[in-house]
C-alpha cells in the first residue's frame, strides 16, 4: 500500500525574511512559519538514561545523544508551533545528536533532526501541524500505523463516540497490534461534543485515507490548531503490545482541577482498558485463527 497523497513533505523551501512570530501554536503552522520562526537561543536536546537498580535505587546518566521524546521537547521549547509526535517502537532506544542553534530556522532544525537521526525521525507539515514521526522500519512490507489506510464511515456527536468508532474500524481491519484512542481535555471529559456549537451537532466521517489523515481531518473540524495528537506503542500489565493515540487539547492542567475531573479521568481510563482488553483478545483470536489457517493450508 502506498502512502496517501495528502502527505506533503516539505523538501525545499525558499527563504523568507526574518521575523519573530509570538505564540504561533495558537495559529496553524504554515510553510511561511517554518521559514520565519527562528530559535532564540541554543537548545540542546537532552539525553537521559533513567532507571532503578536491582535494589530499587534510582540512577540517572546523562548521554551525549538524545532520544525521540527529548528531541520533541527541545523543538517545542524552541519553536512555538503545534506538534503531533508519532513515537514508533524502538528497542533499544535509538539515540542521535541533536541541538537547535541560536537563530536557526524551524525548517532547518527539522531537517537537521532528520539528517542527524539517519532518517529515524521524519517530519512533515500537515493540516497546520508539524508531524514528527519516529521509528525504524523493520520490513519492506511494513506500513507504519499512521500511514495505514483506514475505511471509516460513522457519525459521532461526542469524542467518546468518535474514538470508539475509529478504534473499531482500525481493529477490525488490522489485528497485529491493537489501537486505542484517548482524548485529553482540561475537564477530563470525552463525552462532550466534538464540534463547536455553531456547527452541525454530529461529526460525519466517511473516508478511506490513512489513520493519520482521519485524525487530522477530525482535528480540522474541531477548528482549534492547538489541538494535537500523539501516538505511542506500549504494553499492558500482561506485557501485551498496543498502540495508544491521544488527542490533546491545550491548557490541560498537570493536576486535576476538581474531583469530577479526577473521577471522569478514572472512568475514561477504565472504559479504555475494558475496550483494550476486548481488542487484545480479539486480535489474539484472529492471529491464532490466521496461524491455524496458514498451518492447515501448508498441510
Amino acid at each position: 500500500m502506498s502512502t496517501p497523497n495528502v502527505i506533503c513533505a516539505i523538501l525545499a523551501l525558499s527563504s523568507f525574511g526574518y521575523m519573530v512570530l509570538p505564540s504561533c501554536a495558537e495559529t496553524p503552522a504554515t510553510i511561511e512559519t517554518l521559514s520565519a520562526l527562528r530559535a532564540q537561543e541554543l537548545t540542546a536536546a537532552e539525553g537521559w538514561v533513567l532507571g532503578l537498580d536491582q535494589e530499587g535505587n534510582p540512577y540517572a546518566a546523562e548521554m551525549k545523544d538524545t532520544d525521540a521524546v527529548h528531541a520533541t521537547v527541545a523543538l517545542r521549547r524552541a519553536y512555538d508551533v503545534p506538534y503531533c509526535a508519532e513515537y514508533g517502537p524502538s528497542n533499544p532506544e535509538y539515540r542521535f545528536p541533536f541541538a537547535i542553534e541560536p537563530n536557526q530556522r524551524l525548517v532547518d532544525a527539522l531537517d537537521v533532526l532528520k539528517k542527524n537521526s539517519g532518517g529515524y525521525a521524519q517530519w512533515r507539515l500537515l493540516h497546520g501541524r508539524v508531524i514528527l514521526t519516529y521509528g525504524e522500519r523493520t520490513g519492506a512490507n511494513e506500513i507504519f500505523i499512521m500511514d495505514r489506510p483506514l475505511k471509516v464511515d460513522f457519525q459521532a456527536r461526542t469524542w467518546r463516540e468518535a474514538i470508539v468508532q475509529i478504534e473499531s474500524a482500525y481493529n477490525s481491519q488490522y489485528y497485529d497490534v491493537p489501537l486505542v484512542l484517548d482524548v485529553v481535555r482540561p475537564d477530563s471529559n470525552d463525552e462532550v461534543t466534538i464540534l463547536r456549537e455553531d456547527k452541525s451537532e454530529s461529526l460525519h466521517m466517511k473516508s478511506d485515507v490513512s489513520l493519520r489523515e482521519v485524525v487530522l481531518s477530525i482535528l480540522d473540524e474541531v477548528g482549534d490548531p492547538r489541538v494535537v495528537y500523539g501516538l505511542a506503542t506500549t504494553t499492558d500489565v500482561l506485557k501485551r503490545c498496543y498502540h495508544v493515540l491521544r488527542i490533546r487539547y491545550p491548557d490541560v492542567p498537570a493536576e486535576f482541577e476538581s474531583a469530577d475531573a479526577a473521577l471522569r479521568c478514572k472512568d475514561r481510563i477504565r472504559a479504555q482498558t475494558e475496550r483494550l482488553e476486548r481488542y487484545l483478545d480479539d486480535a489474539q483470536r484472529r492471529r491464532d485463527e490466521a496461524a491455524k489457517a496458514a498451518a492447515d493450508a501448508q498441510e
Partner: protein
Amino acid sequence: MRSTMTLPVTMAAMVSMLALGSFQEGETVVTYEAIPRPTGTLSGAPALMTPGTDFRIEASDVEDMDTKHTVSSSCSPSTTLVSDGSAGSYWTVFDPGAEDSVEIKKLKATYTTQSWNAESEGEGDYGSYAFTTATFHFDDGREDSDPRHDSAGLGGVTTMKIVPEKVTTALGSGPRCHGGMHVGHCFRHTVLNVDFPTFRFEGLKIREKVLGTICEQWDKESEDAIIASAHGEWTITGDNSFDLDDCHTTGEDLAPLLAKNPGGVALFQVYCLESWGWPAKNPDHYIGKGGSFLSGIHLVMFRDESNTFCRVTKDGVTCACTESTCPGMS
C-alpha cells in the same frame, strides 16, 4: 614627605659624569632612579557577592617615590625622594563567565560580576562557586625610557560568587484532595550551599525540569506530556526555602501510567537556576549537578495504593497516612 639620603652607587655615577667632562661649571645635574618600589593598599568588597551588588575595588594610599640625585657645580650631591603620579595604573579583573579579562584604568572602581557556566568554569564538585579576582598594576604613566618609570603588580583582591548546591526536601502541606481522593502531597524545599550554610539566597528564582519517568509499562507519549507540563517556578525566601511548596499530584498526564503500573511511576525532577544576580549561564545545569550519578536529582514516586489514595514519596519523604484522609466526595 621628602627625605635626603646618600647612596654610594649614585655617587659613583656622578663621579663618572665629572670624569667624562659632561659636567660644566654652574650647571646642576639631576638624575632619577625609579626606586623605591611603589606601594599601596588594595581592598575589594564584598568578600561574598550578593545579588544587585557590585564588586567594589580600590587601591588606596598609592604612593610612588622616585629617587632624585642632584649634583651641582659646588659638587655637593644630594639625594632626595620625590613623589610621582599613578596615571597609568589599572585593575585587571578576571571573572569566570566574562568573555575576557577587563581592564579598568582607575584606582577605585566597581565591577559587575557575571554569571558563570557551572560545568566549565565553576569550582567544587557542583560548580557552585567561582572566584572573581582583580589585580592592581601600578604604573606612573611614564615612558619606559624614563628612568623614573615605575611599573609593578601590587597584588590582588578576590570575591566569591556562590549558588546553592543542594535542595533539601521535607514534607509540606497536604494531602492534596479532590473529593474523598488523596491525589498527592506537597513538599517543602530549602536551598543550601554546604560551605556557607547561613548564606541567604533570598530572591533567587528557580524552575523545575522533569528529566523523565520510569515504570514497567511506559509510553513515550505520556512521558512527552509529563516533561512538557513541568513549568513550576519558585522564588527563594529569606530562610532559603521555596516560597511555595512543590506539590506532586496525579493529573491527566500521569493517570494513564498509574493505571497500568501497580508498582508505581517514578519521576526524575531537577531544579535549575533561573536568575539571581547572575542569570544562568548554562540553563541546562541544575542545582547539585555533578557530584554523582544522582546528585541533584529528586525522585518522586507515585503509587495508587487504593482507588482513593495515591501515595507520593519524594526523596524518601512521604506522609504517614496509609489511606485517604480527605473529606468526602463533593
